[in-house]
């Protein structure tokens, strides 16, 4: 039985023909190119490198960027791309989010003209891969405490420090490293192979296994004067990037939830216990009803968020709510579906457990669930609770 994408409130009707066509193209591609092999990659702990060229060919990398050979796609269509990619696997969506929202977007927003010319077209074509280095071993939720430092030299800057948990970190041709220069956060573009710069894959993950998560070590790394972002300083640089990426994560998490729900719905229709299909049991129906309701709410929130972004009215707090809500419910849905598939649910023959494990990362990165709770709490009360 083919995948039936849940659309209980007929949101399709609120999409433009272009948005639907983009979504359908990516959906078909995921079905034929991602799903057949992703379980093997997940078990092997490898990212499907062979798909990068195909995603580039489709135009998915930095699809939201306008100019520099990029298509300038609207936020709803872009969100739908991420939703469909994560229907395949969170690792694939993470690759695209990092490349597009966390590296290309800041280069476009804060970079020099030379940096844009040099990187954006190549990154859109998938010929250069990027990563975003903010988190450090000792500073995750509180990036302002970062210890990575830059010092001005005669020819440029010298960087020292370490970044951890960096998606695409080892495969990257260019790392956007956030470091403090005279106590203020700045962005630096550090290229693969620069002396003193080590990119090292992290092993033994139980989550996001089909993704390159790495450590970046910077030991007296000398970069030229034009490696710094001229357009931004302070934490608002990285935080603005995260707002971009987080809105995409809300769409992505919905995609993972949709994949799990659809798989469980099909499974219980066929699985017979005590003489009839599980689908006819009230406990099972209660779960399906609950899950479809949550998926529908996520979809509504995402669509509205996309339209607000289109109109230039989206706030970081709205993004926090959408990311927090989608990740939380997607994870609950994945766990419920895992349970509904019984023993089959723990195998690579089905998707639920892979999504469930992936979502543990998705609910953690780009601001944990509780950090988004505190962002909302701050907005509601005017009182900051995290410091």
């Amino acid at each position: 039985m083919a995948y039936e994408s849940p659309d209980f409130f007929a949101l399709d009707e609120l999409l433009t023909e272009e948005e639907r066509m983009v979504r359908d193209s990516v959906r078909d591609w995921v079905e034929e190119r991602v799903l057949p092999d992703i379980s093997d990659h997940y078990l092997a702990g490898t990212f499907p490198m062979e798909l990068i060229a195909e995603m580039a060919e489709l135009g998915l990398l930095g699809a939201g960027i306008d100019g520099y050979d990029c298509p300038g796609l609207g936020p709803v269509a872009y969100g739908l791309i991420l939703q469909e990619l994560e229907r395949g696997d969170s690792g694939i969506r993470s690759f695209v989010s990092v490349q597009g929202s966390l590296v290309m977007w800041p280069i476009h927003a804060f970079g020099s003209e030379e940096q844009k010319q040099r990187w954006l077209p190549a990154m859109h074509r998938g010929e250069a891969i990027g990563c975003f280095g903010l988190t450090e071993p000792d500073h995750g939720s509180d990036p302002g405490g970062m210890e990575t430092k830059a010092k001005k030299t005669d020819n440029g800057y010298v960087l020292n420090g370490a970044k951890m948990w960096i998606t695409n970190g080892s495969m990257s041709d260019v790392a956007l490293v956030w470091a403090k220069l005279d106590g203020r956060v700045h962005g630096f573009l550090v290229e693969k192979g620069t002396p003193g710069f080590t990119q090292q894959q992290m092993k033994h993950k139980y989550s996001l296994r089909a993704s390159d998560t790495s450590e970046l070590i910077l030991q007296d790394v000398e970069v030229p004067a034009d490696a710094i972002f001229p357009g931004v300083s302070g934490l608002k640089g990285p935080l603005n990037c995260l707002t971009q990426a987080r809105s995409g994560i809300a769409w992505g998490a919905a995609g993972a939830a949709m994949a799990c729900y659809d798989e469980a719905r099909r499974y219980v229709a066929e699985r017979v216990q005590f003489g009839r299909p599980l689908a006819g049991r009230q406990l099972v129906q209660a779960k399906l009803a609950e899950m479809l309701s949550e998926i529908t709410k996520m979809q509504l929130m995402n669509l509205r968020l996309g339209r607000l972004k289109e109109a230039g009215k989206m706030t970081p707090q709205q993004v926090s709510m959408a990311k927090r809500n989608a990740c939380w419910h997607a994870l609950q849905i994945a766990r419920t579906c895992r349970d509904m598939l019984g023993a089959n649910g723990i195998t690579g023959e089905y998707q639920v457990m892979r999504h469930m494990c992936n979502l543990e990362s998705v609910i953690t990165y780009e601001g944990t669930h509780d950090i988004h709770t505190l962002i909302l709490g701050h907005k509601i009360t005017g009182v900051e609770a995290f410091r």
Partner: protein
Amino acid sequence: MDIIVCMKRVPDSAAKITVAGDAKSIEQDGVDHVISPYDEIAVEKALQLKEAHGGTVTVVCLGVAAATKEIRQALAMGADQAVHLKDAGGNRGPLEIAQALAGVIKGRACDLLLFGKQSIDADNGAVGVMVARLLDLPVVSLVAQLDVADGRATVHRQSEVGTEVIEVTLPAAFTVQRGLAEPRYPKIKGIMQAKKKPLEEIDAPAPAGTMALDKLEPPAAREGGRIVGEGKDAVGELVRLLSQEAKVLS
């Protein structure tokens, strides 16, 4: 080289088809539509030929108003322009469809006219060759390989009996089958350009009423199998039934 591809909107092969209450049409609710898969192969081949030799690709679709979706899909894949022959309803047999298509193709620049070997809903496999005849073009059906050079096409026509290799001077028409090309996924830029490409809308001539659809019935449910025995002993009876009852052995 100017290429025209005729394409039809059909229900997705994955859709569950049920007969509607009027017993004359299929239930449209919840049924996705697509470019008929063989036509989509023809579109892909046309695009590949254009990329290799230059020229234009025009798609022509006789279909209901909603077929703009499938037309845009072909434009998103890379076709340059489209003609939508808008069908306001009524029944048309293959000849009437062919006449309507030939009517809009006539007079347009066309070195190569492509069709799918059949649509996956009506399955007549007739329209392509009929249009070619009406336009006085040479036609080869069931094409699985197509190369063009110096105003000639070399094609492989594949059927149950084997492969015929045929050379034709252009302009010519071909109906194509699986194996010829693998349809591409529309790319983001293609999709964004699609809405800006020329789409000519023409009202299709009203059906002449030469064909009426009387009744639509789902295929009879298949009967369960029958076990005629076990092991070697069953072979004699099985052969007898296959030849005398099922008449699949002679």
